[in-house]
């Protein structure tokens, strides 16, 4: 009887170890996916959504002045409506990118980056503040139009760019050039194949 219990215990221990191993492997795979997603979010923010030239172009006052001075009311309304749509969609995408980065840092970064508790806390607070700022900007653009809050847009973009830099440093071990090249190549594939 004692021998049976002994072997049952050994069996249970082995099963438990197998379960732990399986869980660990699954998490490693999930983490790699999370890393790639975080890197993509970072590239999207830095390369597509936050470059100063693009932001200046979307919120260009010069275009507004041209339309206001040379077109009738209905064209001006169309212009404001179109620019508002683009601006709100841009703000939404910035927020979504920041959210994806934050989720990565909250859930996965500790497994990879050697971040101190203080840095992690600071990052968490900065992310939270930025998310609130993005939402506020989105509402302001929606309610006031694309030219209502230039200062707010500038500050939010600046803050987001800063946070991306910090995030990029903590992800630097990923080998950015290799991944960047891969994503660029993938993006070109449809045109080149």
């Amino acid at each position, binding site marked *: 009887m004692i021998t049976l219990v002994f072997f049952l215990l050994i069996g249970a221990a082995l099963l438990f170890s197998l379960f732990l191993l399986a869980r660990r492997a699954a998490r490693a795979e999930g983490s790699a996916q999370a890393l790639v997603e975080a890197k993509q979010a970072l590239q999207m923010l830095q390369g597509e959504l936050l470059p100063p030239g693009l932001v200046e172009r979307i919120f260009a006052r010069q275009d507004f002045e041209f339309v206001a001075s040379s077109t009738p009311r209905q064209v001006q309304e169309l*212009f404001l409506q179109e620019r508002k749509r683009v601006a709100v969609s841009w703000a939404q995408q910035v927020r979504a990118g920041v959210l994806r980065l934050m989720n990565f840092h909250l859930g996965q970064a500790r497994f990879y980056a050697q971040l101190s508790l203080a840095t992690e806390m600071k990052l968490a607070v900065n992310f939270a503040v930025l998310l609130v700022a993005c939402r506020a900007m989105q509402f302001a653009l929606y309610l006031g139009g694309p030219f209502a809050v230039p200062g707010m847009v500038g500050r939010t973009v600046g803050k987001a760019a800063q946070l991306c830099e910090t995030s990029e440093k903590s992800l630097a071990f990923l080998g950015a050039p290799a991944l960047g090249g891969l994503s660029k190549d993938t993006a070109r594939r449809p045109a080149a194949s």
Partner: protein
Amino acid sequence: MSFATTKRMDVQAAAQDMRRRTLAQIKRPLDRLIYLASLRDYNTGVYYHDGLASRFSEDAVCEALSDCHREVFRQLFFCSLEDLVAQLEAYADSTNAAPSDFIAAWQGLEPYRVSVPAETDSVSANFFFSNLRIALAILQNRLHARRLPRPDAWRQLSLGQ
């Protein structure tokens, strides 16, 4: 020299050739964008150019034209709305179509949607489409204003009589 380096050099040479011989002859960025988009097969996304294909590999030509396309799109993206309106008006004139037909076709069919490079991000593409919609509305309005008789025209006519 590695295969990748040789290919990159071919791509650069083909792109340079395209810029110098062909694109330099096309004055406006909007016309260049439409021309480059027309070199791309809608079904496969592959660019073709017979002249370049006789001197460079198919892959190099495709990549070179894709580079030029992105470059021209970027140039147009950063054009002011006023500039874009002027370019669109000049392009409409160059098609020899009646302005009202041109505007109606572009507003209805939105052919400019196929003119952007394949890997353009959604914000840039939407911004460009939106600017073209506004430019078309401005042109339509100008056309309408040209057709309407000036308020003083009747008075001049009656004075003449």
